């Protein structure tokens, strides 16, 4: 009887330990206040969540822009991030440029893959050069206005567009 009692206690402890680990994970999933670690892993953390009919970003704009900038290199400057929907598919749409050549602007689309109520960043993105085009259709890199019919030479695949970010807030 006593052994059984101890065994039950041990199982309870194990269960609580599991809950503690889950709570710690929840903290790192965070959008990131200064008190929390600035951490985002696109492989394991959802980017957006469905709330009613709305899709809301689950990760802060700061982390999402830093995550792409980490992939593109130190000279990349993300100008704008928005969530767009094309033919029912949600995307993160980034406008960015390189600091050493600000005349050339680029746009990167990262598809969001649904999983239940959550959306994860896909492992493949596409990039267009948008300079010289007022309205670039970013899904197929065609220019609806301006000279020429492509936005600077068509689309370019960018595998794993978002990188894991794990550094403390400055």
């Amino acid at each position, binding site marked *: 009887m006593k052994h059984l009692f101890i065994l039950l206690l041990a199982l309870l402890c194990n269960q609580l330990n599991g809950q503690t680990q889950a*709570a710690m994970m929840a903290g790192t999933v965070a959008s990131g206040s200064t008190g929390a670690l600035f951490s985002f892993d696109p492989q394991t953390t959802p980017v957006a969540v469905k709330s009613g009919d709305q899709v809301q970003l*689950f990760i802060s704009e700061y982390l999402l822009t830093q995550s792409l900038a980490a992939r593109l290199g130190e000279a990349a400057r993300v100008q704008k991030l928005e969530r767009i929907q094309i033919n029912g598919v949600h995307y993160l749409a980034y406008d960015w440029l390189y600091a050493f050549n600000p005349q050339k602007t680029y746009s990167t689309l990262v598809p969001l893959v649904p999983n239940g109520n959550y959306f994860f960043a896909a492992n493949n993105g596409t990039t267009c050069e948008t300079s010289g085009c007022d309205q670039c259709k970013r899904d197929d890199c065609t220019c609806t206005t301006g000279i020429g019919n492509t936005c600077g030479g068509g689309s370019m695949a960018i595998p794993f567009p978002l990188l894991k970010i794990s550094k403390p807030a400055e």
Partner: protein
Amino acid sequence: MKTICYKFLLLGFCCFLGANTLFAQKSVEFFDPETDPVATLVNGKLRLIVSEEVLVRSVRMTLARIGLIENIDRQYIEGHWFLILESRHALNFEQAVYVALRLKPDNKGNYYAEHYWDACTGEACSGCMFDQAAQRCFCKFDKPGAPGENGFCMHTVSDDPLLKKVPLKPD
């Protein structure tokens, strides 16, 4: 001897359980608008460091009827950054609600939510909104009207905190 041993084991488990529970409580993290910035400057651009999902929950704690928040943006107006929330009233989907929350900078480029905010809404207008300077609240589909008439939009100013402390992770 055996009984004492069991008692010690039991005591040990109880301490372990207590410590575990305390640790679990501490590890739940919050967004607290009184101490945490909402946005920060990165290469001259203002970036939200709190996610949309957290901001929406934080606003809903104060304005339960704000309904569906369709867009969160920011505008630089007359020397101040504002967080602009666009939503549809919870009880009347036709009714637009615009809220402009002023942000207060610190010397590190972090921006905190001020208590001061403006709201623009009207029951008889489906498109109440602020002008570019966020000073005039008007109905974009109708001519200006008196209270109760079409085209009437109400400008409300408050210095009650708009954002409330919420857990970073939804329930």
